[in-house]
């Protein structure tokens, strides 16, 4: 009885367990740091008041306790976890380079939206993102990017009156000229 229980656990190397423990440990460290920061909130509570730090401190204490529970869960289920993982099959393989490029492109789109204006930033984003995502044909790629941007401009600027970023320097003038050409303003 005892051997069957200990069996799977004995076969498990400690490596994956420590990997699983990194997450809760990291969160625990951050929680301790934020708890320390919560103590520095500049609003001393008045008499018979719980104060502005009370609520975040309470959440952080619960979070610390929960990290401990999670770590316990991981250690307790080390054998079962491996068996479950084997049954469920491996996670689908990730194209790390593609993922990294997509993340960089999203961040770049946000960054450049403020500098070169929404129309140009969005056109470039759509063009490049769809290309990275696997759209190879040049004409549909170009047409979708242009028509998509024009449609979004009409919907959000003309219909919803959303003042989308026009960009800085000459990009600002360029966006306004584009709006005039498209009869948006």
């Amino acid at each position: 009885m005892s051997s069957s229980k200990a069996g799977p656990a004995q076969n498990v190397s400690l490596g994956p367990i420590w990997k699983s423990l990194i997450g809760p440990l990291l969160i625990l460290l951050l929680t301790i740091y934020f708890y320390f920061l919560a103590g520095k909130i500049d609003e001393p509570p008045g008499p018979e008041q719980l104060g502005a730090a009370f609520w975040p401190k309470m959440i952080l204490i619960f979070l610390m306790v929960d990290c401990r529970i999670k770590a316990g869960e991981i250690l307790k289920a080390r054998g079962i976890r491996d068996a479950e993982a084997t049954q469920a099959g491996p996670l689908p393989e990730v194209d790390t380079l593609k993922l990294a490029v997509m993340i960089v492109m999203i961040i770049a789109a946000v960054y450049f939206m403020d500098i070169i204006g929404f129309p140009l930033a969005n056109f470039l984003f759509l063009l490049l993102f769809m290309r990275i995502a696997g759209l190879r044909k040049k004409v549909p790629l170009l047409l979708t990017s242009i028509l998509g941007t024009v449609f979004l401009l009409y919907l959000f600027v003309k219909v919803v009156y959303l003042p989308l970023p026009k960009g800085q320097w000459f990009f600002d003038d360029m966006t306004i000229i584009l709006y005039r050409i498209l009869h948006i303003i």
Partner: protein
Amino acid sequence: MFDQLALLGTGLVNTFDPLNFSMILVGLVVGILAGALPGITMLNAIVLVLPFTYLMGIVPSLLLMTSVYCGGVFGGSITGILFNIPGDPMNVPTTWEGYQLNKKGFVSKALGMAIMCSAIGGFLSALIMTFVSPPFAKVALSFSSCEYFSVVFLGLVSVVVIGTRSLGSALISLFIGMFLGTVGMDDIYGAVRFTFGSRIMETGINFTTVLIGLFAIGEVLDQLSVKSKGEGEIIRTRPKTTLPRFAEIWGLRNTVLRGLGIGTIIGAIPGTGATVASFVSYGVEKQVSKTPEKFGTGVWEGLAASETSINASTGGAMIPLLTLGIPGSGATAVMMGAFLLHGIQPGPLLFSKSPESVYTIFVGMLVCNLIMILAGLITAKFFSELMRVPENILCAFIITFCLLGAFALRNDMADVWFMAAFGVVGYFMRRYALPIPPMILGIILGPLSEKYFLTTMIGAGNDFTIFFRRPVSGCLMVISIVLLLMPFLRTLGKRGRKRPEAA
């Protein structure tokens, strides 16, 4: 009673006036479309149609706004089911089940079920509103911050029941969400917390940016970064919305009735609304279910409970507005503005001064919820067409809509940055099996629970027992504690049953 029926008859005639009826149709389509687009909320849509009501009479104005309201709360479920992008925070529980049903190949039926449950919830709550408005409003008004906290606590407890294999992970996610909700200026004491000196952070992290990022961007990155796709891939055909058969709805009658009750009651409490109603309803449904472990994997009860309660809350929210002149949410506040624009003060006198207008609104909401089935089918068909668009094009546009949606919240690029950052976080949460829904729940309900908790504590001299001493609050807290303990009680029960078998 006879007077009431006569007024309902007048309301019916008014509602089917060509102008009034067309306002209902236009409002429903605008509401559903706005609700479905991430970032453009139902409230945005109501504000947008407000200028158009200047030239109209009070009846078409209010019918237009109420139909935008009813359509708007439902609209977000369509994109939630089709693309895992809830249009509004209230549509999050629908998305948990609806998207899983989509993955299983039940997209047509899931859309149909969402439409039917929304219509039933909205229709029945409008019926309740018509007949029991005044006494209902009095009860809702007797609620103080103590009861509000208990309601929100009940919503938070639902994390225990949100579909996840690990309670530890769910709680970590919930507490991180609640902690994120504390960032910025504190509502009660005015203290600035965890902003690191940044002015942008002082206004706090808008939960819609977190919602859009975690769900939509995370999902897009997850879908496009996979080299070879497994069986879980969504079937990319054009789904045809199929309305459920009567027997199927009848099979879910208890779920629908619970959703209706929870939605109407929570909707009638000012300051809570459809989001709290949908989370509480979903949580309660999972607790009473015989197969709670299946929730989160595509369960009809979860979808029906959430959808019914969302639209039931619209009828509930109109009760304090019409009977007491108190708007309980942003949407009803704008509607109150429309009343005032036309020189009408909502409140007890409204029933004696303009009973025809009130009863036209009542009938209008009833009709509106019936027509929503048709409007829902048309709009769902339109969005279903998008399923035929190639994945690479669709994903690029989803990201663009998310960027625009985040910007539209406050016309602030800071929200777009937050959304992008949470998108990346969402991707890694998926990969490392940290559940996303509890974090969303925490960031939405965390600030509300803090506000009500601290307000109660200030009033009660830090006496924690106040939550158990007031009857309504006490009952809600006991229900929450029972729900909280239920998983442990179930485990004990299973062990108890196993022992005699083993013996």
